[in-house]
C-alpha cells in the first residue's frame, strides 16, 4: 500500500533525525550557547528536516535508483529517502571511516552516489546548477533517467535559482525542481524577504509549469510529484514542485528557535506530517497496531544504526590526503 510506504519512509527519517539531534547536543557553539565540555558524538552544525519528511518521502518514492538527486544543507531525509543505508549515514554523522563519505563530509555534505544521491551542500542554491548539468549529461548521453533538485525557500532569492531554472528550460532538461518551503531562511522568515508571488510564479515566468502542494501531506506530494515527473520523463522539459511545510526545529540542532512565536510552532506540530498520514491510514482502514509496528521497526533500525556508529572505526589521519586530486598528489606544500 502506497500510503504505508510513505508513512514508513517518513517514520524512518523522523527516527533518524531525532537520534541525530540527541547525539549532537553540545556539538557546536552557536546562538550564544557554548559547546559542551565533553565533545558531542555528532560534532558540528546539524540541520534537521524534522517536520519536513513528507516532501522527501513524497518525491523520492517516485524516483528510481538510477535517477539522480541534489540536496541542501538539510539533506538527511532526501538521502535516506533516495535509498541510502541509515547505518552508513549515521556513521558519517559520527565522523567514522565507514560513513557514506568516509568521515570527510559529515551531515552537511552527506552523499551516496551509489543510490544517485549527488550530495547535500553547504551553500544555499548550489545544488541547482549541478542538477542542471547532471540532467544535461543524461540527455547528451541518451540515458532515460531524471534529476530531482531539492532546494529551500531561501534559495529562490539567490542568483543560481534564476540561472538554473532558465538553463533547464532553455535546454528542456529532465529536472524536477523541488522547493521544500519551510518558510524560514535560517532565523529570518522568508516571506517578508521575498518579492512577488513566490517560487511558483517565478518558475512560471520562465515557462516552467509548477504545482503548489501542502508539503505536510505526503499523499498530496506523492501525487503531484508523480504528475510532474511523468511530464519530465516524457521529455516535456523541467517542472517545479512547490511544497509548503514547516521546520519544527531551529536552524541547527542546538538552536532552540525561540525567535519564533510558540503558538505558531505548536500549531505546526498539530499538523505534523506523520499525524496527517497516520490519520489517512486509519481512515483507510489500516489498524493502529500495524502503524505502531512501523514506528517500532523504524526506531529499532535507527537504534542499531546508532550502536553501529558508536562502534565504528575512526578514519586514519592519513586519509586526509586521499582523494584530494591526482595532479601533484603527494606534495602538499
Amino acid at each position, binding site marked *: 500500500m502506497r500510503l504505508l510506504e510513505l508513512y514508513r519512509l517518513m517514520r524512518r527519517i523522523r527516527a533518524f533525525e531525532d537520534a541525530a539531534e540527541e547525539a549532537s547536543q553540545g556539538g557546536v557553539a552557536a546562538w550564544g550557547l557554548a559547546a559542551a565540555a565533553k565533545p558531542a558524538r555528532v560534532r558540528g552544525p546539524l540541520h534537521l528536516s524534522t517536520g519536513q519528511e513528507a516532501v522527501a518521502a513524497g518525491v523520492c518514492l517516485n524516483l528510481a535508483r538510477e535517477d539522480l538527486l541534489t540536496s541542501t544543507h538539510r539533506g538527511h531525509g532526501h538521502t535516506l529517502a533516495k535509498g541510502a543505508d541509515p547505518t552508513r549515514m549515521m556513521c558519517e554523522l559520527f565522523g567514522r571511516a565507514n560513513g*557514506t*563519505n568516509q568521515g570527510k563530509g559529515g551531515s552537511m555534505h552527506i552523499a*551516496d*552516489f551509489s543510490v544517485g544521491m549527488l*550530495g547535500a551542500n553547504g*551553500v544555499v542554491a548550489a545544488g541547482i546548477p549541478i542538477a542542471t548539468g547532471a540532467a544535461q549529461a543524461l540527455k547528451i548521453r541518451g540515458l532515460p533517467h531524471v534529476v530531482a533538485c531539492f532546494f529551500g525557500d531561501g534559495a529562490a532569492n539567490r542568483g543560481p535559482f534564476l540561472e538554473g531554472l532558465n538553463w533547464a528550460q*532553455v535546454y528542456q532538461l529532465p529536472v524536477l525542481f523541488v522547493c521544500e518551503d519551510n518558510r524560514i531562511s535560517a532565523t529570518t522568515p522568508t516571506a517578508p524577504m521575498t518579492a512577488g508571488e513566490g517560487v511558483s510564479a517565478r518558475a512560471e515566468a520562465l515557462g516552467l509549469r509548477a504545482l503548489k502542494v501542502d508539503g505536510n501531506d505526503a499523499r498530496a506530494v506523492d501525487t503531484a510529484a508523480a504528475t510532474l515527473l511523468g511530464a519530465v520523463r516524457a521529455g516535456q522539459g523541467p517542472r517545479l514542485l512547490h511544497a509548503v511545510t514547516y521546520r519544527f526545529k531551529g536552524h541547527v540542532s542546538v538552536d532552540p528557535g525561540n525567535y519564533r512565536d510558540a503558538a505558531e510552532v505548536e500549531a505546526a506540530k498539530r499538523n505534523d506530517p506523520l499525524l496527517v498520514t497516520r490519520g489517512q491510514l486509519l481512515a483507510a482502514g489500516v489498524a493502529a497496531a500495524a502503524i505502531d509496528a512501523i514506528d517500532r521497526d523504524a526506531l529499532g533500525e535507527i537504534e542499531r544504526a546508532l550502536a553501529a556508529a558508536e562502534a565504528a572505526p575512526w578514519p586514519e589521519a592519513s586519509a586526509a590526503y586521499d582523494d584530494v*586530486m*591526482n*595532479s601533484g598528489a603527494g606534495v602538499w606544500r
Partner: protein
Amino acid sequence: MSGSPLSYAQAALLALQQAMQADATVVALGEDLGRGGVFGQYRGLQQEFGPQRVIDTPISEANIMGAAVGMALTGLRPVVEMRVIDFALCAMDEIVNQAAKNRFMFGGQGRVPLVARMPIGIWSASAAQHSQSLEAWFAHLPGVAVVCPATPQDNFSLLKASLACGDPVVYMEHKELWGLQGEVDPTLELLLGRANTVRRGNDLTLVTWSRGLAPTLLALELDGLKGVSVEVIDLRTLWPWDQTAVFESAARTGRLLVVHEAVQVAGFGAEVAARTAEATGCRIARLGAPRIPVGYAQVLENESRLSPEKIAAAALHLLGTAR
C-alpha cells in the same frame, strides 16, 4: 619531430578538436562558442561536433560552472569557457566550493574531470575588469590544478594533459598570447607539474610563466644582462609546480628572481620565493605588478605591465647583492 607553425589559439583549438574526436564524453560549454568563441579558440567545433557537444550558453557564469560539475559527475568531461578570468569571479562558489571539493568531501565517491578556461592578463586596453591575472587565488585552493601556458606548443600539450588528468583544472591562457606563432608538435606529450628550462645558465635563476616569458627572454638581450649566464625556467603549471627543477637551479646559481604579470603582493612568486629560500638559502627577489588596478590609458596600463627593462633592472639589482 616535425611541427607546424600554429598560433597559441589554434594550438588549443587543435588539442580540443583531437580530444573531442577521440572521446565522445568531451564537451565544451560557454558563451559564444557557436561562433568560435570570443578569441576564435573554438572555431569550427560546433559545426564539427554539433550544438549538444559544443554548447552555446546564456550569460550565466555560475550555472555554466555548476552545470559542468554536474556533467562531470554524470560521465562527461566538460571544457568550461569563462571568457576572461574576471567573469569567472561570478562562478567562484561553483569553482571553489563545488568543483574543487567534491571528490574529497564526498569521500572519493565522484570525480570532477573538468577544464575551466579562464584567460588572464592585460590585453588590448581592456582596463581594470578585463585584465587581471588571478592565478595565485587558485594556486591557494586545494583540489584544482593551475595551468598557465606560455607558448603554442604548451597550449596544445598542456590542454591535452589537463583533459586527461582527471582533476578540475583552472586553465589560464593569456589573452595577449592568442596570436603568438610557434612550432607545434602534436605528438609531444607533457605532464602537469614539469617546468620548461628555456635557457641554461649559472649566475641567476629566473622563474616565470605565461606572458612573463617573452619579456624575460628579451631582457636577456639588453646591454646590462649580456654576458650574464641566466637560467630561465618557464614554470608552465603553478599547481603542481616543479619544485625539483627550481630548487636544483637556484641551489646552483645562488640567486632566484621570480617574474610575473600578476600583482606582486601575495602573488604566486611569493610562494616560489619562500619555498626556494627554505630549500636552498639562495638570494631572492620578486617582480610583479604594483598593487593597483590595471588602468585604461596606456601610460597607466604600463605601470602594471612587465617589460624587458623592468625585468633587467630587477635581475641586475639581485646580481649586485652579496651572495
